[in-house]
């Protein structure tokens, strides 16, 4: 294991809070790799440092997260680059150093867990301790099982326990070896929130006493905020942003076909004001057909649009890293919009837009309502809702949209 080296790295350094540095024992993980996957043409090209503590790797599927973890773990060889923990070099293409996976002392919890189906929970957890004397092996296994609250499962096979329990076993199996780096590939995907947060607490407690870098892969924004001391956003094999979860995640997403899928309402929006204290901002919605003013011509819409101005609809959205006056696109799912026939009051939702029902269209067992609020929005209702509200075209209605139902994308 490397000495206590915790200095911050270069420009892409992801740093842990000062408190974390003070107790650091494992050293900083420094990664610079290029890996071309021959079959798919996918190219991973990243460089980052991860100090002891949690570093979140965030990105859509196919961003290269698992490939990156596999490179660090030594399961696939990078084409070039260098990977080191403290001053212990795991991989160095130039120096022709390539430590095999079994000698890296890296704990890796796989996305599909990969528990050994033929071994009991206890034998699974002991697997990495075969060089440890029997007495100590038993003691360490027992202690990690109770730390993760699963001592009662010791004698069971993986197919005899629940999904959440398997996740704990997979964690225990990785943690018991006292790894110098911990790699977690969406270890809590598909768990309910309560189970998830209990496991996260246990992981945090473990990391308090074992100050090693933890690379935690997820595509859940909630997990990023819950866990992250620092985060790295990966996109198509490259690092888009590094920093605190708030800094990196509040950047508007790249608008892609995939992002647009599922958003019935996609509108141009101009940032009017930022409310950093509340974590929100106000945007003005422009009807898409009216066209936004070309850049430079009308930098700030409210002040400059003069002749027959379209009715601009203010919308409170989550705060993203954007300047006042900049253009974004807002995606809102039709299913996320509530429709009311009287002005609603006493709601937590921040956006109540008055409008007029343009059309109602039946689609299978659901109604698609088009409402003109200055911009035309589509909302989905049930048949029962249409009937009990006696909805028909021309009727005055109010649309309710939660701040976090507004998804911001780069224009």
């Amino acid at each position, binding site marked *: 294991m490397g000495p206590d080296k915790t200095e911050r790295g270069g420009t892409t350094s992801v740093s842990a809070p000062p408190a974390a540095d003070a107790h650091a024992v494992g050293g900083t993980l420094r990664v610079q790799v290029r890996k071309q996957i021959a079959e798919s043409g996918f190219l991973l090209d990243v460089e980052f440092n991860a100090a002891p503590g949690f570093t979140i790797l965030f990105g859509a599927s196919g961003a290269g997260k698992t490939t990156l973890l596999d490179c660090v*773990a030594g399961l696939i060889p990078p084409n070039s680059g260098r990977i080191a923990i403290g001053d212990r070099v795991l991989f160095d293409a130039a120096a022709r150093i390539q430590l095999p996976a079994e000698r890296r002392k890296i704990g890796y919890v796989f996305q599909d867990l*990969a528990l*050994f189906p033929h071994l009991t929970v206890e034998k699974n957890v002991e697997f*990495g301790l075969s060089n440890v004397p029997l007495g100590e092996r038993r003691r360490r296994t027992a202690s990690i099982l109770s730390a993760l609250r699963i001592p009662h499962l010791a004698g069971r096979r993986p197919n005899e326990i629940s999904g*959440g329990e*398997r996740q704990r076993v997979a964690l225990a199996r990785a943690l018991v070896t006292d790894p110098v780096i911990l790699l977690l590939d969406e270890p809590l995907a598909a768990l309910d929130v309560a189970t998830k947060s209990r496991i996260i607490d246990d992981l945090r407690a473990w990391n308090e006493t074992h100050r090693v870098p933890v690379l935690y892969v997820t595509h859940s924004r909630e997990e990023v905020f819950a866990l992250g001391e620092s985060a790295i956003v990966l996109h198509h094999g490259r690092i888009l942003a590094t920093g605190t979860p708030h800094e990196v995640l509040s950047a508007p997403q790249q608008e892609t076909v995939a992002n647009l899928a599922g958003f019935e309402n996609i509108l141009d929006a101009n940032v009017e004001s930022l409310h950093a204290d509340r974590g929100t901002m106000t945007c003005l919605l422009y009807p898409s057909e009216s066209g936004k003013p070309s850049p430079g011509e009308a930098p700030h819409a409210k002040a400059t649009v003069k002749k027959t101005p379209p009715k601009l609809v203010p919308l409170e959205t989550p705060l993203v890293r954007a300047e006042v006056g900049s253009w974004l696109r807002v995606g809102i799912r039709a299913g996320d919009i509530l429709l009311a026939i009287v002005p609603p009051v006493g709601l937590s939702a921040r956006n109540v837009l008055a409008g007029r029902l343009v059309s109602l269209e039946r689609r299978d067992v659901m109604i698609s309502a088009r409402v003109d609020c200055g911009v035309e929005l589509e909302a989905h209702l049930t048949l029962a809702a249409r009937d009990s509200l006696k909805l028909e075209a021309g009727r005055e209605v109010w649309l309710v949209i939660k701040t976090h139902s507004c998804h911001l994308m780069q224009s």
Partner: protein
Amino acid sequence: MSIDWQAFWLTLRLALIVSALLFIIGLPIAYWISFSRWRWKFLVEAIVAMPIVLPPTVLGFYLLVALGPRSPLGRWWISLTGHTLAFTFTGLVIGSILYSLPFAVQPFAASFSSIDRRLISASATLGASPLNTFFRVTVPLSRPGLITGAALTFAHTMGEFGVVLMVGGNIPGVTRTVSIEIFDQVQAANYATANATALLLLVICFAMLAIVYGSNRRSWPITAINGPR
């Protein structure tokens, strides 16, 4: 009617020895076939599968040539032991190993290939060397395939005829196996003896395979245990 028990014991001994040796020889070959990424691997697979389609007489003929005093192998063996390999029990074992090779290697390789590669990776990250991983993960998870391969080898060797006749001839107590004994009895029109011997062989092979397949039901899923998704 008298059953030639000597032929039975000889055949049983041959089948056991061949199964044991093929288990040891087959494991590394199967491992290489299922894990190698060499582009010409298919050639090796084709060679291993040859005995399935080749007439036993063809295999037997070339073996006879290879084991005989004119081949380098045959000469080396003669210089070592003073006699030729052909028409000996050892020659029979060598011939049977080649003849039954695909019946061991193919089930082995198939079960190795069906193992989730993530389990192998998990073993490596937990500090196990490739050899360690082989014995702690690959072999236990391949148990059904390994048993099947061994059982098929055994049964196939019990019943082989052509290669044995070509390589071993028909020497009582040395190379006369049950199938050759049956052939002899039929040639001599001793149909009752032939029938009794044949029936016994049939029963033995059936019982053997039934026991193996019956005990071979899996007690756990062969793939990795996934999380809830």
